[in-house]
């Protein structure tokens, strides 16, 4: 829902952790800002929204291997921002979207979507197609409120499972400490592992690589690895 909470950092680092664990991973960058695409040193493409929805686009042709074994990326396409509007006018958009994903089934174990901020038809389709939704949550009042809004809108579902995790946690701040210490206040039970506020995560933009590639022993890297292990146990 919110921007700047660590969605892309989460998507990139969790995808990398999954690949390191031997899973075949595809990360789909659905954000027109193309941040995941940038982190993996790829170029975002143009065009194709209409063909995508008409089912005339073979998404497999756009997949690129990352620099890391087992991890591929579907780079962002700027025109997909138009896809949202087009999707809203189709019948059963979630079924249309799920059909698109079928071609990936046999080749990948894990499909991770890095969604754009905000609720849209596209993100609702992604939710409907997913087994789990990871929600990076800064331990702040507004974030807690946003979670409540999500719960009011979607309710509690078995599938997808809503899995908030605390992101950008600054242990020096009392508010962060108090919120993290009282997880029952959240609309959905949060994951046990949280991601600290760390300069290594910010350095991803300079290094253009997942944190574990340039700061393997850092707290942030270990935190993402632990979060991935917890996620595997959940789902």
């Amino acid at each position, binding site marked *: 829902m919110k921007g700047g909470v660590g969605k892309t950092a989460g998507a990139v680092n969790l995808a990398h952790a999954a690949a390191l664990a031997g899973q075949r991973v595809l990360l789909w960058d659905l954000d027109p800002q193309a941040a995941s695409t940038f982190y993996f040193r790829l170029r975002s493409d143009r065009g194709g929204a209409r063909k995508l929805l008409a089912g005339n686009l073979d998404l497999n042709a*756009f997949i690129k291997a990352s620099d890391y074994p087992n991890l591929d990326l579907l780079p962002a396409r700027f025109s997909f921002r138009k896809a949202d509007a087009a999707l809203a006018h189709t019948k059963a958009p979630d079924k249309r979207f799920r059909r698109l994903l079928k071609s990936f089934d046999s080749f990948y174990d894990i499909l991770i979507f890095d969604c754009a901020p905000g609720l849209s038809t596209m993100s609702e389709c992604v939710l409907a197609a997913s087994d789990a939704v990871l929600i990076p949550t800064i331990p702040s009042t507004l974030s807690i409120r946003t979670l409540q809004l999500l719960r009011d809108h979607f309710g509690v579902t078995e599938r997808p499972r809503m899995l908030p995790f605390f992101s950008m946690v600054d242990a020096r701040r009392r508010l962060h400490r108090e919120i993290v210490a009282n997880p029952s206040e959240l609309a959905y039970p949060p994951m046990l592992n949280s991601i600290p506020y760390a300069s290594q995560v910010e350095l991803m933009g300079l290094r253009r690589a997942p944190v574990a590639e340039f700061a393997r022993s850092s707290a942030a890297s270990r935190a993402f690895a632990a979060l991935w292990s917890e996620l595997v146990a959940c789902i």
Partner: protein
Amino acid sequence: MAACRILVLPPGTEPDIVKLALDCDLGASLTQVRELTLEYLDTFDGRVYRAAARLVVEQERRTRHLLINTATERYPISRAPVWAHELPVQQADLRRKIGVRALGPTLVRQLVQSEYGILDDLDKTVVRLEVKVGAVTSGTDTLSPAPTEIRIFALRGFDEFNQRFIDAVLSSWPQAQEVSDELEVLASACGFAVAGHSTKLALELDPSMPVNAALKVMLRTMHAQIDTNVAGTKVGIDSEFLHDLRVAVRRSRAWLSCLRGQIEPHLRTRAVGELKWLSEQTGTLRDLDVYLLKLDVYAGALPAPDAGALEPLREHLRLARGRAQRALRADLNSPRFAEFMHWWQAVLAQSDTESIGQAVAPAPDEFEETALAVANRVIWKRLKKVLKQGRAISAHTPAQELHKLRLECKQLRYLFEAFSSLYPAKKIRRLVRALRRLQNHLGEFQDLEVQQDGMRLFAHKMFQRRAPEIPTLLAMGRLIEQLHQRQMAQRESFAGPWADFDNPRNTRFSTRAFRRPNEAEDFYEKWPGMKPWPSS
């Protein structure tokens, strides 16, 4: 794993990857340099190669990995596997094909492997490379420079860069060769036959070639087979070396017996005598090999306490086998054996148009018979004998008659092995397959009796050295009983394999193929597609 293309360059070439990348408007990053020793494993007869598989032991400093087929299938190991059961269980098919043969290093490479990422303007890796420069040996001490190998790994979505780089390599080295597998190129560099020594008999005879020439081809092949397997037999690498050596001896004896008129008598007498000696000297060790190979199978059928109690027997067999191995090694190192092999090779080295000595017994026109005419005659004679004996077998026939039939089948099988190239492949194969099944059935029956006798003998011998524990004797008794029951079951199921061999279809073929011996002229009409022997 990304698709990989392999380019080989002349030995000693050290390609400038950075320059190549720059020529393609790309960058290059050297990510790793490794010093490696690679050992390619296979059996003596190339079973891994023929299974289209690869087993490579990769050693880097003190770390070893077993690579199976591709570098992505890697298993850490402490030492190179020798036996099939040491391979991962996922390789069930390969394990089955390797069977009882030992694995050993066929080629050893020492190399420096440099790993590169080829980069675009965003420093994204668009191609991965491994460059291998080094030397290779096939087991001698001499290292030969190995062709330089460039492995190019395509990354998904970057095909255009992949092809651009390959084009740059081929443009810089027009003599570069793209190969699907580097093993054959390496083997060629050090003069090694990568397919191993095949034990499959593939004699190519021609219907109208003189029988004398055919016999020379047959016996020379067996001499070579004995020679090839001597070294492995002496060392005792695995039991198949001795088995293949004994098969060559048996075939030679059988052919010398069936075609006795084609060789001067005194030469034949000596050859047969020495081959018989060789057969006798190798018998004890072979029997012990078989006992040990089968002990696991038989023990597996016993209840667990009994199976465990057989360990003293296994130890007794191992010690006996060690003694027999040493005795055989002495025989194979003896002047007698060396002289025989040298002499026999010289006898068979004469040209194909000369006789093996001077035949005395047959009349001159018989001596000049064609291979086909003689093959028809000897096969038909033996086949009639087998049919007569087999058809006489009933539920009450003594076991001794089945043993006799087994020996006749063996002689017939050796004749088919020698002369099958003279007949249409598909038809003869069907008959030979049925004979093999029958022979295996009779062989199993015989083996079970021999195993029972062996167990009784071993019990006595073990008692002479030191009285075995009661559980061991009881387990051996139970084993004898089981072997007896299996032997009876074999006896009762004789009819099935016999009917596969003796049936109207096979009879029709046999009558047509073998019955009339002097049909060289009609032969090509009967079997269109077979070509005549070129006249000298």
